[in-house]
């Protein structure tokens, strides 16, 4: 099935309506496995039980970036392929991505308090995630200022793509500016630097979070389509009202 088959909102609604319960079930199952594995994972010899915050922190950080990627792809869909549902997808992804970025920041702060002795340091990674959060809020603010959803979609798509070009540059410059956070340790050329007892729960949680993202995203897209239908119906009703 090609992506263009989903261009018809009605067909998308029926397909996603059938897929959603399965996705929600898979998400719940993955979370159950993830929590069970995480509970069984050993404490770190230095960090103690606080290392388990990582099972939430790291997947949210991945999804914080994944969210912007989804938005960028949708932005290309809006501007290049003129896919009718692309701006719905972009709009639905923004608050979810922002929420995961916030979870990442909050869990990071809670972990940093016992480990680094402070909730917040102006370290490169923390700062660039915070900037990412602010950029999410900027895109959401832009969505909320337009009355017409299709014009809002194009404007937000341009901002998203400009952001996508700039995020690596911001990341690089902030790294250049200051760094304290540990470097990436899961995805490395020499293989993961994490012991398997921690790595497996982490990967399971990452899968669960990704499934959660997809489920929430599909549900939010359905809401957005229905909201637009209500909007056009009420506009038609206002047009047809007597006295005009």
């Amino acid at each position, binding site marked *: 099935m090609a992506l263009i088959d989903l261009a018809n909102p009605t067909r998308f609604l029926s397909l996603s309506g059938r897929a959603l319960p399965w996705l929600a079930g898979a998400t719940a199952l993955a979370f159950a496995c993830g929590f069970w594995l995480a509970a069984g994972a050993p404490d770190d010899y230095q960090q103690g039980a606080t290392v388990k915050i990582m099972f939430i922190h790291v997947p949210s950080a991945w999804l914080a970036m994944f969210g912007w990627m989804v938005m960028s792809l949708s932005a290309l869909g809006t501007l290049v392929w003129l896919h009718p549902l692309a701006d719905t997808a972009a709009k639905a992804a923004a608050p979810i991505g922002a929420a995961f970025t916030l979870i990442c920041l909050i869990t990071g702060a809670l972990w940093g308090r016992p480990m680094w002795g402070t909730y917040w340091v102006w370290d490169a990674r923390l700062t660039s995630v915070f900037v990412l959060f602010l*950029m999410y*809020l900027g895109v959401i603010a*832009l969505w909320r200022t337009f009355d017409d959803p299709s014009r809002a979609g194009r*404007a937000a*798509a341009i901002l998203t793509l400009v952001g996508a*070009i700039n995020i690596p*540059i911001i990341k*690089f410059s902030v790294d*250049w500016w200051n760094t304290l956070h540990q470097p990436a340790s899961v995805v490395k050329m020499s293989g993961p630097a994490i012991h398997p007892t921690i790595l497996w729960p982490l990967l399971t949680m990452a899968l669960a979070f990704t499934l959660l993202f997809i489920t929430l995203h599909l549900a939010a897209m359905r809401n957005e389509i229905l909201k637009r239908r209500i909007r056009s119906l009420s506009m038609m009703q206002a047009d047809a009202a007597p006295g005009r």
Partner: protein
Amino acid sequence: MTGLGALLMRDLRIAIRVGGGAMIGVLFFMLVVTLMPFAIGPDLALLSRIGPAILWLGALLATLLTLDRLLAADQEDGSLDLLTMGPAPLEMVVGVKALAHWLTSALPLVIVSPLLALFLNLDGPATLAVTATLLAGTPALTFLGLIGAALTVTLRRGGLLLPVLILPLTIPVLIFGVSASNAAIVGPVTFGTPFMILCALTLMALVIGPFAAAAALRAGQE
């Protein structure tokens, strides 16, 4: 190309004459720098240490202050529609408008910055470094701001939204502008390394800005 030249002259003339507000940004810049010693104390040693950061922040805020007028006046009187439909490519048109805006609102900031550096107790080489980084870095601010101006031009409260959208994108310019200035004063890196990256950021903004702004303007038309 004569059409674009005429557009540049027109924008410069409008900005310089009454109601153009070209000098408001400079006044704002001077006020921000004047407020700083009141906030952090008149300690000259401290001021000379953070002077480049103060000047850069002031210039950043002053650039943002005037950005919402970059396209809004033309949108209000309808000349932006004429420019959109005209024979010149819209990318070039918005590029020329941003150039005129830089010449009238950001270049004056660069020119007064040595004077303000004197107030902040910066010595000769530091003043030279700050002025050079501002000269190289402010075009990036204007051309990134151009994207925000084009995105928000049709909005009623666009002027409020613009800084929120653009400020995150200016972080790299601020980082390398300030670190190049500091490198010239205290080291340890040489002035050249961050300055080259600052120039690269400006060149990139010069390319991305007009294309994204033209796309935003076309998307904003009914």
